[in-house]
């Protein structure tokens, strides 16, 4: 045995480690993202949500994390492609008959397809909200909040009346000027096609994570009979069911209820 | 006269004394020697690894696609060692004594003693390699009593001891391959031995994938090619196990010893039909809890066979637990030969069970009642599952059906104390040689012998030979003997490929198997053996005139591979019959109906047959010449084996 060994990232396990770590990081992001977005369900005309959106895009530590996030998405996708190509090469002639369902779950065998759906969704999602938000393509809003009663009144702002996000308290009234991402969300989700894409993508996400979450722990070597049931539980219930359903409810809520 | 080269002196000191007296090869000179190892089972892999560690260049050959697949891997039960970890009175001498007695006093004392002596080193060595033997809760090695031994000296790894030991030896071999000291040739079959000036100097092999016939030169050749049980067609051996390497060496001058000693194992799954390709052994440990029986009357047996009755319908009074009845002190745990013979008797009596009537029951109902199904499952679960897979019968609910099957061959290439054959420089190790088990092998002794030969005997003895050979004696690759032998091999292959008759090789092999099983199986008579000899000679003629061999040499050619092996089996079969005819006594696995006690037990004739029969090949279709190695017993008293 020689102690000279290939660099970790060029090895199969190293590449898998990258998939695992980026995947897990994206999972934690999902939790944060969901908690924040739950504010969409508040009936405050987007007051809380828009404030949150500003905070998330302007607080430096979070900005740093967000770059990590973009990088993770790209790396996760690129490595997925690299690994898939490797895997294809590892079996140049396929089987005439391959009975996968007898030995494994459908979603575990089709992470690539599920991931692709999610990637397409992500592109649409970012274009609709992230890009528009960052490029001044969303409407503006002014909230006047009576600090003694807590009542909020909303005014649409014209682009000309908006310079930057500001919160001014004047005479017991808090005046907030902000970009109205909430309105953009409401607008976007009137499109049934988009709503359908979101729901499908969340289903894909669900199946992707039911396998992916547990799989990530297996890859980093965490497979312990005491804790694996917990991971499996989290993977199925939190990441496979609650999170995707909660996300899917958002477009449905705007389309059907709002 | 055959010289066994057993060193003088007291039994217990022979090996140490001999080790000292043997010459050593200078460490710097070891790399000038090449040793060829044919076969990579326990004996071959352990020998190759150990010799390479010493510094010799080693070439290994196996017909399988990997050294790890040699049939040692299938050994289930365990490996004996005189460790006396259990404090139950075991000792080297006791293991020696049991083995000599178990072999019915037809083995060489000095060899058996050495085997018992190094048995303890084997366990140490294997544990050091990481062989996962069974452990007790405190972390110590666990032992069990096996095959009716009175002490617990068997080390085991669940029901896969052979597998684990072989993987240990294979790992040691891999280490040397990695270091470049061993060159491993897989899917290669040895087809002849090359002799130069009377010494073994190389082999001729066929690359089974490309068909290339290659000559490999070396200073010594080690045959570790296993036994010849497949002469019976149906046996517990792997499909590929064959005698070809040893037989071709025999034809080049290596005497073949005691070919008639074959072991028929009692607990195998019975034959179901003509399509059957091999027999499956179930560990003898089953007899620890299972009870062997047949119905008392032929009428009841007939009803069972027709399916009119089930085993459970037979009342206790109507059952004959024949081993318990005849051998009250050993009961179901009598040695293999005795258990097998009694099963055959019951079947010959018309009391066999199962559709074919060629089986006896092995019943676990009592054990399940006494210990509970869970305990029985924990002990034998994998065996019960295996039985269920093959027979589609649930052994928890109905008794197993078992019948003896050919399992091991005690006979083999004759070797002296140094494991050298009658050809200088040619050695035989493991089941391939004849040496340590006499006329009957005890359970858990085969693994011990293979590893003893490979790890602890051959590294010394081959060194002695090489040291005397001197390093001024390189092998001349261009010696005409290599080319000549190669051509002879090619001629033989061409002769086989030219056979375009009607029968398949398997047809002939099955016929040979029938003859051997019928006349040279569990019970033999002069009359039957004489008849068998004639039948085999006819079969040989038929083979060389009416068999069909397809394809060409330059490809993976199943029919060619088989044809070459069966041709050799036929010749060996005839020699087995000759040997069985010559040995007019009964001993161990060799039971001559003419020689039995009043109670029907094997009767040895010590004054006439206390010798090893070593046969010399003298030419095609010539009778082989018998040489005798007298067996001298200085340390044990020959007694009639009794398991009453």
């Amino acid at each position, binding site marked *: 045995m020689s102690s000279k060994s290939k660099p970790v990232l060029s090895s199969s396990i190293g590449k898998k480690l990258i998939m695992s770590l980026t995947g897990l990081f994206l999972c934690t992001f999902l939790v944060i993202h969901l908690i924040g977005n739950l504010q969409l369900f508040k009936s405050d005309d987007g007051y809380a949500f828009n404030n949150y959106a500003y905070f998330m895009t302007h607080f430096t530590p979070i900005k740093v994390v967000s770059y990590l996030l973009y990088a993770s998405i790209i790396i996760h996708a690129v490595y997925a492609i690299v690994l898939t190509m490797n895997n294809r090469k590892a079996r140049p002639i396929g089987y005439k008959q391959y009975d996968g369902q007898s030995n494994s779950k459908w979603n575990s065998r089709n992470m690539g397809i599920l991931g692709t759906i999610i990637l397409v969704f992500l592109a649409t999602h970012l274009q609709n909200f992230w890009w528009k938000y960052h490029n001044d393509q969303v409407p503006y809003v002014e909230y006047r909040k009576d600090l003694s009663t807590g009542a909020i009144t909303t005014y649409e702002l014209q682009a000309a009346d908006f310079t930057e996000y500001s919160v001014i308290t004047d005479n017991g009234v808090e005046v907030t000027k902000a970009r109205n991402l909430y309105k953009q969300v409401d607008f976007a989700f009137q499109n049934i096609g988009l709503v359908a894409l979101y729901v499908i993508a969340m289903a894909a996400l669900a199946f992707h994570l039911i396998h992916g979450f547990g799989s990530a722990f297996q890859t980093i070597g965490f497979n312990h009979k005491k804790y694996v049931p917990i991971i499996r539980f989290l993977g199925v219930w939190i990441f496979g069911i609650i999170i995707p359903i909660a996300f899917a409810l958002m477009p449905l809520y705007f389309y059907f209820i709002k | 006269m055959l010289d066994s080269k057993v060193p003088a002196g007291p039994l217990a000191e022979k090996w140490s004394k001999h080790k000292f007296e043997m010459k050593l090869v200078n460490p710097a000179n070891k790399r000038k020697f090449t040793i060829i190892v044919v076969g990579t089972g326990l004996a071959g892999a352990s020998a190759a690894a150990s010799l390479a560690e010493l510094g010799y260049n080693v070439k290994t050959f196996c017909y399988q696609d990997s050294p790890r697949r040699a049939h040692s891997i299938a050994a289930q039960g365990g490996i004996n060692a005189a460790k006396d970890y259990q404090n139950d009175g075991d000792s080297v001498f006791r293991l020696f004594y049991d083995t000599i007695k178990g072999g019915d006093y037809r083995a060489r004392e000095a060899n058996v003693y050495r085997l018992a002596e190094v048995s303890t080193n084997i366990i140490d060595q294997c*544990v050091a390699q990481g062989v996962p033997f069974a452990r007790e809760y405190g972390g110590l090695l666990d032992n069990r009593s096996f095959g009716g031994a009175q002490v617990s000296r068997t080390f085991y790894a669940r029901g896969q001891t052979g597998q684990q030991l072989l993987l240990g030896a294979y790992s040691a071999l891999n*280490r040397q391959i990695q270091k470049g000291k061993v060159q491993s040739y897989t899917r290669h079959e040895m087809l002849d031995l090359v002799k130069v000036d009377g010494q073994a100097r190389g082999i001729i092999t066929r690359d089974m994938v490309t068909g290339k016939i290659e000559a490999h030169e070396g200073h010594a050749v080690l045959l570790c090619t296993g036994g010849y049980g497949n002469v019976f067609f149906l046996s517990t051996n792997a499909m590929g196990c064959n005698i070809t390497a040893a037989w071709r060496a025999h034809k080049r001058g290596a005497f073949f010893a005691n070919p008639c000693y074959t072991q028929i194992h009692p607990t195998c799954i019975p034959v179901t039909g003509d399509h059957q390709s091999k027999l499956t052994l179930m560990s003898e440990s089953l007899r620890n809890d299972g009870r062997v029986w047949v119905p008392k009357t032929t009428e009841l047996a007939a009803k069972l066979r027709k399916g009119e009755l089930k085993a459970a319908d037979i009342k206790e009074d109507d059952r004959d637990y024949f081993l318990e009845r005849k051998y009250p002190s050993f009961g179901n745990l009598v040695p293999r030969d005795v258990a097998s013979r009694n099963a055959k008797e019951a079947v010959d009596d018309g009391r066999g069970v199962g559709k074919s009537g060629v089986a006896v029951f092995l019943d676990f109902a009592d054990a399940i009642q006494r210990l509970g199904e869970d305990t029985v499952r924990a002990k034998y679960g994998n065996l019960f599952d295996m039985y269920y897979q093959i027979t589609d019968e649930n052994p928890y609910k109905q008794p197993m059906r078992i019948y003896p099957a050919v399992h091991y061959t005690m006979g083999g290439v004759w070797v002296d104390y140094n494991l050298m054959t009658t050809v200088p420089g040619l050695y035989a190790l493991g089941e391939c040689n004849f040496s340590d088990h006499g006329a009957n092998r005890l359970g858990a002794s085969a693994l011990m012998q293979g590893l003893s030969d490979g790890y602890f005997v051959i590294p010394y003895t081959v060194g002695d030979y090489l040291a005397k050979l001197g390093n001024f004696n390189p092998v001349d690759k261009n010696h005409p003997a290599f080319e000549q032998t190669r051509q002879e091999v090619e001629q033989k292959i061409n002769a086989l490929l030219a056979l375009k008759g009607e029968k398949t090789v398997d047809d002939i092999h099955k016929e040979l198997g029938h003859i051997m099983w019928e006349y040279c199986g569990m019970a033999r008579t002069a009359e039957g053996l004489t008849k068998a000899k004639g039948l085999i000679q006819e079969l040989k003629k038929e083979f060389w005139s009416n068999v069909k061999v397809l394809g060409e040499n330059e490809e993976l050619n199943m029919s060619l591979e088989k044809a070459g092996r069966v041709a050799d089996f036929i010749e060996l079969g005839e020699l087995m019959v000759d040997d069985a005819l010559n040995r007019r006594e009964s001993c161990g696995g060799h039971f001559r109906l003419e020689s039995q006690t009043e109670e029907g037990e094997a009767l040895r004739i010590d004054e006439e047959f206390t010798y090893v029969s070593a046969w010399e090949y003298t030419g095609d279709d010539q009778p082989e010449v018998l040489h005798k190695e007298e067996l001298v017993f200085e340390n044990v008293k020959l007694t009639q084996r009794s398991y009453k």
Partner: protein
Amino acid sequence: MSAHMNLTLKVWRQKNDKSKGQFVTIQANDIADDMSFLEMLDIVNDDLTRKGEDPIYFDHDCREGICGMCSLVINGRPHGPKYGITTCQLHMRSFHDGQTIVIEPWRAAAFPVLKDLAVDRTSFDRIQQAGGYVNVNTGGAQDANNILIPKRIADEAFESATCIGCGACVAACKNASAMLFVSAKISQFALLPQGQTERYERAQAMVDQMDAEGFGNCTNTGACEAECPKGIKLTNIARMNREYLTAKFFREEDIHN
């Protein structure tokens, strides 16, 4: 008692590693249900031979499920439709009269087809040679009972050690990954005290060799575990990953010269 059946086999035939193969349809008639699958092929081969046609080449040896030589993907499943057994332990009672059976070799770049259904698995040997051993010479080993191994550790190591190296894990894996096989050996020695000295080098050396052989990457589908005739567990792969990553991140830099 035993029923007989007629079957249609679609068998991969390929002359050698250089030629292209194709499926050939062969009838197997009058097959008894108590035959093993390989005995069925024996009969088919016997018929082919009688007709002067080349018999189907397939690897097999012990025919009792331990040597690991037999292979065959049968109707899309390595070692056929049952779990926990090898092809040689599969019996024809698992099939029915009139059934079509597709028989293919293991498919992987690292297992090139040699002929018909036989593939070259020497890549497995090379992985073992890279580090699947304890560096110990013959002779001079300490008394076996000086090494105490708790029963549960010994049992766990044994479970890993029962791998027969058949390659069904690779055949079953949609990525043709060999991680179950490699991890079984790494696990055996990672668990046992005898394997500690070279524990981390071993993991690295064997993983490197595995990658060099061109096997795919594990995506944790669990197909290997499901199809393994010896029930080797996925926990082995986790352990291998752990060993390898520990080696890479924490152990490799310990040595400064």
